[in-house]
């Protein structure tokens, strides 16, 4: 369990980092906390010739409010975001998701951008980003900046819309409006494990009715899955237990998750329905409605 030989570079500015990834191309891998990449290196499952460590790039380190949006730099540590009052106030769903990532030691090293760009289908942050309809900002030295909606960013198991010469620089999230509630529910074998299934829910409630719903599942496909049919069901009628049950059933029925040693496909489907119910109910309660 020792990595194959690789070079290590530690750029000190975004320009330097972008120049490096452009020059090194697909042989290089950005190091953004290393909580997944380092084990992959040790197993020799990833064999980049060079690691470009982004820890010293100052442009990627801040959390700020900009033009009504919460903006989080790609290299902000998960633990820092978890403890940030701006995150909690502007994107409560993110605040729900962050404590579910691993353990504090992992979150102290792991970064927001690292987790998103790694695109593990069982991870919390990709699902939260999709549910939040976040914008992911990619940058290359030659083409500059482009905005990728979260729904288009995650393209498959451990793969994203990022080009080899691009770095994810920040994530922008619309500040949550009043009347909105959210929840992130998951089932993991142990506290801190990758979830077997997770469900992120955001609902806006007006007069005991869900007027807007966003529902995203993790661990059930190779990317986060948005449950559009269930969202439509939830907003189509006044909120009742029956409506919720129907949305849960719809979600479970639409999924065909893979089996592994932790849970069969049938188990994951079943639990997806359970978690949709739990997450939507919790989100609705937080939005001020008792179902």
């Amino acid at each position, binding site marked *: 369990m020792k990595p194959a030989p690789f070079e290590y570079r530690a750029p000190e500015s975004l320009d330097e980092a972008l120049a490096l990834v452009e020059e090194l191309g697909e042989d290089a891998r950005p190091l953004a906390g290393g909580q997944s990449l380092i084990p992959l290196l040790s*197993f020799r499952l990833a064999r980049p010739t060079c690691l470009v460590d982004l820890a010293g790039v100052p442009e990627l380190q801040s959390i700020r409010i900009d033009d009504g949006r919460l903006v989080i730099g790609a290299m902000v540590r998960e633990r820092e975001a978890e403890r940030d009052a701006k995150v909690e106030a502007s994107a409560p769903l993110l605040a729900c998701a962050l404590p579910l990532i691993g353990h504090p030691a992992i979150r102290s090293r792991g970064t927001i951008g690292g987790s998103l760009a790694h695109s593990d289908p069982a991870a919390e942050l990709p699902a939260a980003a999709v549910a939040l309809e976040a914008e992911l900002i990619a940058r290359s030295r030659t083409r500059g900046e482009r905005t990728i909606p979260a729904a288009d960013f995650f393209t498959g198991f451990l793969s994203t819309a990022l080009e080899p010469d691009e770095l994810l620089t920040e994530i922008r999230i619309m500040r949550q409006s009043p009347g909105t509630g959210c929840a992130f529910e998951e089932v993991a*074998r142990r506290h801190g494990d990758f979830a077997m299934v997770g469900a992120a829910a955001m609902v806006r409630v007006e007069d005991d009715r869900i007027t807007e719903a966003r529902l995203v599942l993790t661990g059930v496909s190779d990317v986060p899955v948005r449950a559009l049919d269930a969202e439509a069901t939830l907003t189509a009628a006044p909120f009742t237990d029956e409506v919720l049950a129907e949305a849960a059933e719809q979600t479970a029925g639409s999924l065909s998750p893979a089996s592994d040693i932790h849970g069969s496909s049938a188990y994951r489907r079943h639990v997806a329905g359970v978690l949709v119910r739990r997450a939507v109910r919790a989100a609705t309660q937080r939005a001020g409605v008792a179902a």
Partner: protein
Amino acid sequence: MSIIAQRYTGSSIKRSEDLRILTGSGHYIDDVRLPGMLHAAFVRSPFAHARISSVEVSAAREVPGVVAVLTGAELEALIVPGPGAAGIFSGGITLPSFSQLATDKVRLVGDPVVLVVAESRYVAEDACELVEVDYEELPSVITEQQALDPDGPPIFEDLGSNVLNRTEIATFGDVEGAFARADRVVSAHLRQHRHQNVPMEGRGIACSYDPESGELTVYSANQGVQTARRLLAQALDVPIEKVRVLSDDIGGSFGLKMGASREEIAVAAAARHVGRPVRWIEDRTENLTASGQAREESFDVEAAVTNEGDILGLRVKMTIDTGAYPGMGGMLPRMVQNMLPGPYRIGALSFESTAIITNKATYVAYRGPWASETWVRERTIDLIAKELGLEPLAVRLRNVVTRGEPPLAMVTGRSLAGVTARESLERVSAMVDFGAFRERQAEARAQGRYLGLGLATYIEAAPGPRQPQGGGIGGPEQIRMRLEDDGTVSVFTAQMPHGQSHQTTFAQVAADEFGVPFEQVRVVVGDSSQVPQGFGTGGSRAAVMAGGASLHGARALKKRVQEVGSHLFEAAVEDMLISDGVLSVQGVPARAMSLAEVAKAAHEPGRLPEDVSGDIEVTTAFDGGEGGWSGGSHAAIVEVDTETGLVRIERYLVAEDCGALINPAIVEGQVRGGVAQGIGAVLLERSAYDPESGQFLASTFMDYLLPTAWEIPRLEIEHLETVPLDADVNFRGVGEGGMIIAPPTLCNAIEDALAPFAARVTEQHLPPNRILELIGAILSDAGEPR
């Protein structure tokens, strides 16, 4: 008269190991640095079962920094063939022949094929990638059914089949009569799943050979330096007096690190071959994949019972999956058979067993290796209670033996003298408030919450009452004790602590018996040139065998000091007092010497008569004395989330009897650790293989799930007053009990919680997926790896 101000034995004094280990100053194999030391890595099989058609190592030899590359055939030429560690646990059965590195074929994923020795582990692993092995894949043998198929490919050709051993039906008591008298027969097919020892520190060894002197020095994380020494001397054909084995701090073992494994023999041979020290540190993937696994057993059980709940007799057929290379699997059925009746009035037993070979890791000793006797019995009792509509506690109390009343022995032979199973059952049910729980359970069910209470009882022969043939597993325990010139009492033991705190407990016993402050006793372990002969640590022998040897050794050493003192003081031996580290003459407090002064004076010429030796040293052996049982009853209250299948342990209670406590805090630590592993076994841990390809599916900590502090509840532990059988030594082993009894306790609690669903638990592993299958929430997927 002698006044001892304080007795160390029985008190939770702080461990002398604490400062070293808790401050990170422990010294483990990975801390061993020898001049010119090289590093080893193994090329391992990616296939479960394949013939090796060729091995090409020339590219690997070319890598800068590589010092040696040894194929299986090359290694065989450097050593004496033999079963190595497998020989210790063979149980007298015929073992197949095999090599230390695979030569003709590989028999499990992770089978070592080639050894690379290089300047660093990094370089060694780079070179491993360049070794080209051509494999011709063979059908793998993974399941019991595949192993028992007479047309299946034999994993070891010389055995001709994949059955390692069968035992004939052994009958105890009147089995036919018991089943004839029974009102009904409760039967079940019970399965224990494969899981494994996962010590925090994997295996590791560093070897250095001096060609001038012919001496082999071995640093090894090992449960017994003398056993390792004997096996390595044999394998390398080095005279045993030229081999020295040293063990320092060990990050856990649980039965794994015994003797010398195939990899360890290979590393030792490589060190001699290259003429430089070589170290191998097992990494986590190697540890999970290839170090060894345990517990995979299945049972067909029939219980003859009356409608009132009397258990008249059992018929049991056991199948044990011993994995690929021989380990402990072959000898276990007999142990399981003999312990199956446990502390119950079960008057008849028939037992037969089949040990099979599969393309999986070797079956090794794991904390309470014979534990299936308790799991099967305690699970069966709950199934009987369920079928008869009785309370499981009532069935236990109806059948458990009462002290002093017949039967005085298990039907399989062992005396039940001093067993406190009835007392522990009564105590634990009082602790848990059985009646109140049933009310709360009913209320919770009405709200759709599923609580369950499980109980189980075990006894462990640690060492068990005296038998005609003598002590516990491994025979008498020797101890060597010496009064050093500085007044310290040195205790040399073949026990090798790897988490058991022997350096504290033996010192407590010796300090009390000898009459010195605890701090003045030094327990020396882990150096084959200093410690006496002995098997090492295992079989719950340390507390009773080495604790008892410490007591008798200290007594003998005291007698020697008194004898020397009587000459120095010209007083009667009977008048020599030792207290608080001072030797004095009774009634004449002014005539006193510190022990350091005694030791020095004894060596001064002319102070002792010519025929009295000035060396104050004794070697004694202890055979276990009258012995006695360890045991206890545990109870768990669980809540099962029937939507997700997750199990939460609300309370976990222990009423235990491990004899006289040497150090209650250490006893409780052993109980906690064992229970944690038992909880892990039921809820989390499984050494999973793909039944088709034979691939190992749990080779990282993302897939082999160990319990963490979050998953382990606070344990409520009470100690029972024991029944002393021996005049002096009534300490009993407690290391294995928690792991033996926690799985049935938890399985019984989970089944109780799921009673409204009529779920019947017949397997030990109950992950959330399985719970939902048991209650019918989801269909079981036959294609799932199990």
